[in-house]
């Protein structure tokens, strides 16, 4: 029931918004999100006292498809991320000028609903449905509220590319599904069926799944849709993509790929880990050469997810837990970093870093908060980025120390490009008139920084939540 209501609240809100006036769309969305947060946390507490949050009823019994929602630690964590990121996005944009805002927030809420569905899904087909369905709202968000001269080309590329990937996931899931005596998409049945396949078959099944996830995460060389899409999307869309949407893919690795095809990955999945590791370094190089803030953040995001992917695929406790933790941390960080971008872009009218400078003098608090976020981005200890990234590197080290060393290069390169950007924008003497941050902007950054530090200093509870679930 808990899971169902968290899934339904945003969906219903989106329908409500589509049929309402533009007046207080943001308030409605915020209210709904706060309600979700309360239900989620209350639900988690209630679960501790024995209430079952899960739900399952058959939809198409002939193929074993049921509407089944889980309410375990990882699912809760990702839902929490979705809600928090959603809150951040809506809170941030509530005082912005947005045309036909009711539909705008409607699409956002629908997107959240689809993603929550994917995170909660205890049924492979349901996961796939939500995974695909999430494309539609973001597609309209980009198309209708995006900007830039190549908007339609970029949107088209994004949509087709990600669709292309996820269709391979369908093939893989169907292959596993077909191998059962009594077909069922139920999670445990799928896991068992996947494990029963030969290593060779598992390798192929994994390949299909990984291509889907690799496109969405994205991992080199499947990432070429991402920077331009981030660039053209409205800032809220970019946040949705970076903070939550790509987590569907990494979460898919944890929830579906690893349990089903662990043997296949170990024997025939080296290429995927190699690609992930290459992705980390390659994206760092890309970020190093960017002149624009948004692009730099975009590439740094690619580097982070490459690390998540590599760590998860090396398949140890540290990898799985570290991966989940890093997803959460990166989600919050992504929202915050793009808020920083939006703040600067609004005041300068562009985001070419080399043409800025001295923001620190004008807005010391802003600089302070941003610096902590930058440090989280380069995985400084006592920020949440460190806990996740370190666990992932540990996990990767179990697989190969050489890969760890290569992926670890991002430790150096990340510091180089992040500090280069920070220096260009915030430090230096020349000052440009810089309007003080609004209360909303300040609040959202402060909360993000607080979360980042609290999670970095005391990640224990969160880590306990997502342990030993498999």
């Amino acid at each position, binding site marked *: 029931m808990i899971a169902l209501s968290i899934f339904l609240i945003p969906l219903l809100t989106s329908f409500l918004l589509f049929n309402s006036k533009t007046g207080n769309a943001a308030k409605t969305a915020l209210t709904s999100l706060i309600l979700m947060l309360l239900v989620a946390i209350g639900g988690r507490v209630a679960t501790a006292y024995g209430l079952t949050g899960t739900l399952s009823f058959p939809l198409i019994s002939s193929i074993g498809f049921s509407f089944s929602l889980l309410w375990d630690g990882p699912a809760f964590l990702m839902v929490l991320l979705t809600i928090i990121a959603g809150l951040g996005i809506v809170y941030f944009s509530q005082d912005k000028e947005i045309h036909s805002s009711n539909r705008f927030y409607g699409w956002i809420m629908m997107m959240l609903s689809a993603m929550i569905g994917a995170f909660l899904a205890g049924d492979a087909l349901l996961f796939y449905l939500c995974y695909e369905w999430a494309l539609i709202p973001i597609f309209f968000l980009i198309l209708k509220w995006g900007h830039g001269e190549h908007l339609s080309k970029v949107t088209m590329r994004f949509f087709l590319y990600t669709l292309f990937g996820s269709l391979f996931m369908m093939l893989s899931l169907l292959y596993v599904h077909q191998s059962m005596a009594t077909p069922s998409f139920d999670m445990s049945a799928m896991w068992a069926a996947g494990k029963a396949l030969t290593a060779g078959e598992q390798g192929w099944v994994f390949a299909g799944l990984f291509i889907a996830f690799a496109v969405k995460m994205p991992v080199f060389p499947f990432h070429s849709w991402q920077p331009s899409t981030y660039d053209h999307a409205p800032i809220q869309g970019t946040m949705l993509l970076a903070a939550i949407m790509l987590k569907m893919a990494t979460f898919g690795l944890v929830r579906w790929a690893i349990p089903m095809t662990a043997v296949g990955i170990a024997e025939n999945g080296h290429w995927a880990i190699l690609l992930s590791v290459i992705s980390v370094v390659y994206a760092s190089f890309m970020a190093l050469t960017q002149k624009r803030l948004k692009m730099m953040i975009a590439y740094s995001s690619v580097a982070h997810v490459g690390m998540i992917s590599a760590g998860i695929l090396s398949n140890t406790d540290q990898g799985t837990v570290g991966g989940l933790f890093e997803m959460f941390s990166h989600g919050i960080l992504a929202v915050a970093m793009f808020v920083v971008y939006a703040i600067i872009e609004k005041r300068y009218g562009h985001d070419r870093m080399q043409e800025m400078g001295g923001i620190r003098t004008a807005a010391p608090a802003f600089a302070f908060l941003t610096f902590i976020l930058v440090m989280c981005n380069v995985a400084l200890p006592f920020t949440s980025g460190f806990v996740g990234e370190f666990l992932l590197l540990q996990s990767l080290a*179990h697989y190969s120390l050489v890969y760890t060393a290569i992926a670890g290069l991002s430790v150096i390169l990340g510091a180089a490009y992040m500090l280069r950007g920070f220096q260009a924008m915030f430090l230096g*003497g020349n000052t440009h008139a810089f309007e003080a941050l609004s209360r909303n902007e300040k609040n959202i950054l402060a909360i993000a920084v607080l979360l980042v530090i609290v999670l970095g200093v005391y990640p224990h509870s969160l880590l306990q939540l997502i342990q030993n679930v498999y």
Partner: protein
Amino acid sequence: MEKLVALIPLFPLLGFLYITFFGKNQSKGTAGAIATALVALSFVLAILVFTTQLHGAHATFVKVLDWIHVGSFQVDLSFVVDPLSSLYILFITGVGSLIHLYSIGYMHDDEGFHRFMSYLNLFVFFMLLLVLGDNLLLLFVGWEGVGVCSFMLIGFWYKDHANNDAAKKAFVMNRVGDLGLILGMSLIFVQCGSLNYNDLMIGGSAIGHLGKWATLGAVLLFIGAMGKSAQFPLHTWLPDAMAGPTPVSALIHAATMVTAGIYLVARFSDLFTISEGASQLVTWAGVITAVMGASIALTQNDIKKVLAYSTVSQLGFMFAALGMGAYTIAVFHVVTHAFFKALLFLGSGSVIHAMGGEQDIRRMGGLKSHMPTTYWTFLVGTIAIAGIFPFAGFFSKDQILAHAMENNTVVFALLMLAAAGTAFYMFRMFYLTFHGEFRGTHEQEHHLHESPKTMTIPLVVLAIASTVGGFMGFPHAIGHAMHIEHALDHFLSGSIELTHSHMSVATEIALALISMAIAGMMILFAYNIYIKKATPVLEDAEINSPLHRLLWKKYGMDELYDNLFRKPIDALSAGLYHWVEQKMLLGMVDGSGDAAKGIGRILQPLHNGQIVTYLLAIIVGLIALIFAL
């Protein structure tokens, strides 16, 4: 009593938080007093903790918080109290509180005063974490934390991009070392299954599970140490780091942070002892650094740059000692070095303060009469570093040399050379600064003054420490009779491998005399050139002799790195971005779309609207089917 250790890092942290969030309303005096008092409080606690270790060393663990527990990976926020860590916290908080006090005066006119004090507090917090952590990961927290503080403090005057560049360079080069440390940790965890000192070394001996990986593990840890402690080839950031305010140079880039590498190697002495190869590497890196640092310092004219290269060189001495197995001696040198180098930096700060920001010793001279306290304390520091009995530097440096003589003659010769150079460049700087005629502008001369009390008190305290600090490590020859020989050695034996020496008393005394004689000769040499002959120092443009130029240009390492790493990496990423990212990958994606359209374009003429064509296609299809079936 040991439980109190948890409070030691807490006080500076509180100071940081308080000044950051509420400091704006406080006057500079109050804020500075709070910051200093909190560190001093920690110092008092550190003394208490230290005394518990005096009577029979034993390691105690104090757990504060559950931190990261994932499967077999179990790491807590937990502190270790043992001789090594208690010694370190003692001089960190001690020297730290003095420098805080000094900063109140030194930074008084700076608009970023509050910021400065809070950063210093934060730095002390992280430095304490580094040495108190009972596992490698917590050490790493402090390790990175001090790195960030170093970044913020080097670039403290952020409006000048030269400072920011130096800060960034320090951070990124440190990160190169950090990668080594991360990999080392990973290797140790994978092979030994734990990162806790207790499992690895103190309570257990899991470090032995490294087996054939021991050398690799030790080398990786040492790479981390190289970055933080500015060892060749990762040393170039330290001289640049002098861009920060002088107290920062004293605290971070002389006394404490840069010795974290020595702490790391000393802490893992069990590992380095079993790996001959790694120890060799440590020795040679140390020797090369010592000689190189000393040689560059001979030609530098910036008072802080000279001290910086001197620090590099002294750190090289310490690593040479570590590599030769003299862990306790290295730590001894860390402590004495902390005293006299902090003193020297603070003294130079006092000079710079008086000179209105001027740092070039060619523009100074004759300051002796204007600032007597600074002069005398600076003299103590200079003698101490030159290695003259009975000042602190003599004891520690001499034992390193003695140990080198026992082990490897080449190392000994090179270290001796570096020591000789040290005496020369220190006195060169000393004479040029305080003696002779004043060479600056009239305006500067007019403003010359002795520094305020907050600045001179720390100088005096440190000067005393530099004078008597060496007594804790009397060599056998002197201390034997009083039963206090190697007091520090014995104390530290609770934590790290003991240094073994088989040297006879006669040799020891002979060596001490020789090294002092050489130092004395060098001092006279410097006196001869700069006081007696008053040879003017060459201006930058006049430096022509190739050797001089090479040294003055710091062996061209900065340019080399620029051409070897920075430029190629920038070019590589720009190239990858243009060719692979934009042309190849995007081209592939868009190309696959064109491919589908291409199929259509090719087939379009077939769909020409003619019934005949369509019929023909049907017939051809039919015939094909007939043959296929």
